[in-house]
């Protein structure tokens, strides 16, 4: 794949398997009044991969993520989840088809405990009805036990076990991020949009966040990772898209795009539009 101007290309040619890409966006557009925040963006996240999205502040990345997750609506364009069109669906319906996300500022259920946050994110298996709460108590209890088992192992996996009974509001930035990832994992999502996971995280914890993302990936969750830190993106992602002023300007593997003019211009200090990375 060459680093070409590809703002309205369709998905690139897939490999021999006919597995639909986990996520595919075609020509998304979103305007706010006179400002065209997203001006025809297309990208593809192949199943099982980690794809990066970089771009300076104001390039439209956040609007793009909001549109894919459904909290905003694109004016035009298509969003396909596992080959299935979701652009007319409400956020919760997209989530039921497997879409997950984390937020730039972590959105946790702050008054609830860390373990409770996981349990609340565990798949429903019919536990969500008022009727069953009173009249099918045994099946609820069994489903709860299963969810608790899952929660235990996931808490350990993300290093949150010792914090399990504390309110989620007491966690640090990095711990909050890991809890977000843990929730995504227990919820059995298949595609995760991670919006600047390093934001608000102490640089010392960056490795833990990277580890958390790798855990998600090894659980077969396809990931679209939005970040400023090019080194981080390079470590984690097989493919990178760069966005500027609402369009995708280059795409390819990190090696391919690192030599383009766009990156050379912006790569002063290793980050596009964000702070320079700390010494590591």
């Amino acid at each position, binding site marked *: 794949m060459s680093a070409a101007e590809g703002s309205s290309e369709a998905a690139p040619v897939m490999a021999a398997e006919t597995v639909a890409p986990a996520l595919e966006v075609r020509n998304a557009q979103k305007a706010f009044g006179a400002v065209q925040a997203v001006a025809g963006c297309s990208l593809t996240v192949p199943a099982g991969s980690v794809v990066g999205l970089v771009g300076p502040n104001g390039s439209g990345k956040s609007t793009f993520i909001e549109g894919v997750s459904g909290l905003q609506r694109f004016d035009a364009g298509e969003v396909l989840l596992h080959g299935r069109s979701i652009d007319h669906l409400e956020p919760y319906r997209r989530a039921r088809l497997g879409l997950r996300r984390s937020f730039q500022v972590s959105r946790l259920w702050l008054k609830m405990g860390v373990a409770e946050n996981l349990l609340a994110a565990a798949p429903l298996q019919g536990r969500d009805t008022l009727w069953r709460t009173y009249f099918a108590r045994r099946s609820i209890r069994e489903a709860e036990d299963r969810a608790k088992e899952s929660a235990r192992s996931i808490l350990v996996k993300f290093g949150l076990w010792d914090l399990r009974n504390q309110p989620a509001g007491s966690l640090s930035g990095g711990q909050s991020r890991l809890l977000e990832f843990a929730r995504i994992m227990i919820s059995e999502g298949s595609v995760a949009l991670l919006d600047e996971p390093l934001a608000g995280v102490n640089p010392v914890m960056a490795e833990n966040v990277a*580890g958390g993302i790798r855990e998600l990936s090894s659980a077969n969750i396809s990931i679209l990772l939005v970040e400023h830190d090019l080194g981080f993106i390079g470590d984690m992602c097989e493919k990178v898209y760069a966005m500027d002023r609402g369009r995708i300007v280059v795409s390819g593997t990190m090696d391919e795009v690192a030599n383009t003019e766009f990156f050379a211009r912006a790569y002063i200090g290793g980050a596009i539009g964000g702070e320079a990375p700390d010494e590591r």
Partner: protein
Amino acid sequence: MFAFTVVALIYLCFELILVLGLNIQYGLTGILNLAYIIFYAIGAYIAGILTGPPSSIGLTHIGGYELPFYVGIAGAMGAAGVLAVVVGAFTLGRRLRASYLAVGTLVIAVVALQVVSQDLALFNGQLGLLDVPQPFGRGMSGNGFSGLYCVILICIVIALYVVCERLRRSPFGRMLRAIRDDEIATQVFGYAIFRMKLKAFVFGGVISGLAGCLTMFYIGSFSPAGWSVYEVIFALTCIFVGGAGNNLGVVVGTIIVEIVFVQLTSLVPTLQSNPELVQLVRAGAIGLVLILTLRFRPQGLIPERPEQMAPDGPALGALRIRPLSALSRPAGTSRREKQI
């Protein structure tokens, strides 16, 4: 003295039922429903017109079927439920910001108050319903009836507490709390939040209707003076003083607020120039308590605690707790670590 205590307990029970219902809506789900009191009112009125005598001169109202009291209870709770579905569908589905929801529910309450007060044909306007019979016929003396009613009410309150506590601890209750803490995060995990909020709203509304019906059966009359927006402020104060969200907290809060305010403010002298001084002082003091609580102890006397997860469990017996630093190793080693 005994009679006084019994009556005080009866009114305490009415308030406890009201507060438990509002706690489901606000404490558990985060819905500030300033129209909460209209479900109480409809419960009382429907119970009255189902069990009470037909209209007469000077006491005009719809209904008056003189049916048995259990029909009254069922009708009251059913009517409150239907009204809650209507109001909830109207106000909860719109993604209204908090300010708008509060204004909207307040407006609904005030409009309901004005319409009921003015329309004589509906529930006899400002005077309200009178002469609604007691549930157990007229065989009992005043004190005997009060005593029996008090015992029944206490049983109802205990049963209701169990029901509400079961809801709070259930997965459904956990999801309501997630909606309360962050609605957007709950949405992106696949929950149909409107449906769940509506269920919580109706649950609380039905409980409110039950309170109204029980009040009507005890007092035998009911008018707009008995339900105003101030009642919601009073209930909210009980909730915040005790601890919003958890049922034990709100019960304790209600007991404290109700007893302190009933006892202390009845010491205020009745002045010629201002006969309603007691209720004014009471209402003003409630506002003050509410502000002070929100400022200095917003979590209440019994704060909500996170559900605790016990350390033991079959899957974890042999597992070493992994330190955070272990996450920075490449993904391939993560599964091997479990056997260490």
